[in-house]
């Protein structure tokens, strides 16, 4: 890039071990643990320690009982439970043996499958926990989104099967505070769902605008905005303009191939523009072109209900995983580590990046 950007990304860890493409990476929201999953059907866990620049080390590997690729993983808000979505059409629920004991170290017992959720007819693509941890959503190539209720003893009851998409559902994401669910699809749309207390879960909004598959969704930390990443090489920002209404307010360009992943983080090092708008955090995107883009978003000082946020590309790095596609990019949500990003790629590797003033 010929332009000098104000921030730079430095790789602080390169974690190898997967024997095939790595699809997804997830930071434990409570403990110093990073999880990755792969076409090799395993989940790998890495521990880290040290401030401000932690060092990472291999913790353990869960071989999983999945018969096919583990496509995505999600930590419950408590950090105790890990969910895996597999191409074998099941969702695995994993807990660490003896983890309930007091003063248990992270290095405690083995990870065991506490539950296996069956119901999807074809490959599961994504899984997500609601903010309270009481609901789980899953989606599949079978075009459905399932909402599950978490019950005691790792029992899961299906509350609804949402058949709104006309194609493959690629991703599900819960609103950060409300029980609103978003799903992204191969049918180029995003759908938003709510629970009707007297009836079932239902779709209240379809977001159209992308011209190809929508691969990934990220809610803004405050929940007023939603970002979506697409095969059309754009990231769209959708803004809540009414209680149950979102509108596309801007389109971010800056990728040359499919964008597979987008993540919205609230970094501690906030850089405020001269106009001094309200900070909306940093958005990271990555995909088939191997490029990582970081945008800073800010509420415009005189913003109206549907005015777009101000955005600025603050950092960019090419070939983040060499020649490989980057399949997932995620900001660390833990206090003190919010300037860290994790990525995984077709090279089977996980990398951790630190963003710093250039």
């Amino acid at each position, binding site marked *: 890039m010929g332009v000098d950007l104000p921030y730079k990304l430095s790789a602080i860890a390169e974690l190898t071990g997967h*024997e095939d493409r790595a699809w997804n990476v997830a930071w434990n929201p409570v403990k110093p643990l990073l999880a990755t999953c792969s076409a090799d059907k395993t989940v790998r866990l890495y521990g880290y320690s040290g401030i401000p620049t932690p060092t990472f080390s291999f913790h353990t590997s869960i071989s999983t009982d999945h018969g*096919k*690729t583990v496509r995505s993983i999600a930590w419950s808000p408590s950090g105790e439970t890990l969910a895996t979505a597999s191409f074998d059409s099941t969702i695995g629920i994993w807990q660490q043996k003896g983890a309930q004991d007091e003063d248990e170290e992270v290095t405690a017992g083995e990870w065991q499958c506490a539950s296996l959720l069956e119901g999807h007819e074809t490959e599961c693509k994504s899984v997500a926990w609601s903010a309270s941890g009481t609901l789980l959503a899953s989606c599949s190539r079978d075009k459905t989104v399932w909402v599950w209720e978490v019950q005691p003893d790792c029992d899961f009851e299906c509350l609804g099967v949402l058949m709104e998409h006309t194609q493959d559902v690629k991703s599900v994401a819960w609103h950060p505070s409300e029980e609103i669910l978003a799903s992204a699809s191969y049918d180029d749309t995003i759908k938003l769902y709510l629970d009707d207390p007297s009836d079932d879960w239902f779709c209240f909004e379809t977001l159209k605008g992308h011209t190809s*598959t929508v691969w990934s969704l990220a809610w803004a930390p405050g929940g007023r905005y939603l970002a979506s990443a697409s095969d059309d090489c754009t990231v769209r920002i959708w803004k809540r303009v009414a209680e149950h209404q979102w509108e596309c307010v801007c389109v971010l360009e800056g990728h040359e*191939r499919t964008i597979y992943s987008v993540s919205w983080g609230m970094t501690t090092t906030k850089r405020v523009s001269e106009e001094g708008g309200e900070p909306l955090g940093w958005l990271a995107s990555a995909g088939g072109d191997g490029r990582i883009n970081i945008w800073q978003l800010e509420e415009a000082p005189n913003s109206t209900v549907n005015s777009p946020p101000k955005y600025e590309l603050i950092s960019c790095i090419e070939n983040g995983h060499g020649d490989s596609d980057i399949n997932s990019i995620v900001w660390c949500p833990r206090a003190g580590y919010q300037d860290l990003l994790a990525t995984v790629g077709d090279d089977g590797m996980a990398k951790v990046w630190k963003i710093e003033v250039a």
Partner: protein
Amino acid sequence: TWTRRKTQKERHSLWLSEEGDDSIDADDNEVELIDGDEVFDLIRSISDPEHRSMTLEQLAVVSAPQITVSNQKNHVMVEFTPTVPHCGMSTVIGLSIRVRLLRSLPNRFKVDIKVKPGSHTSEHAVNKQLNDKERVAAALENNAITEVLETCLESAGRRGRPADI
């Protein structure tokens, strides 16, 4: 099934090129430039999934002028022409081309595969499926599909030479 499974395991991954495979090897320090003819050479002898005794070249499904290579952008575009506009095997043909190139081309190349514009009744759907790497990855974990693909790819190493020497 056991033997086949073992083969799969030995292969390690359908995506990674193998040592001893007849792939185009890039020199350690030097980027080897490739052209459309070399890419054509890699895929011309893939067998047609329906007419197993015929190659994609013989059925005019693939041809050198339908291949575009950019060494600068590390990009390969392969266009192919299904034999009939409603050809149900188009995705399998496209997949066989994709797997062959994944195994043989240097990793730096991103490959797009499309049917010739106007040559298929579900052109958009076929193209979208062939270029969705998640759908491709899932298809390659399906034993029935990989069995067909491996059969089609057995002849790929002939690179235009006749079947029996």
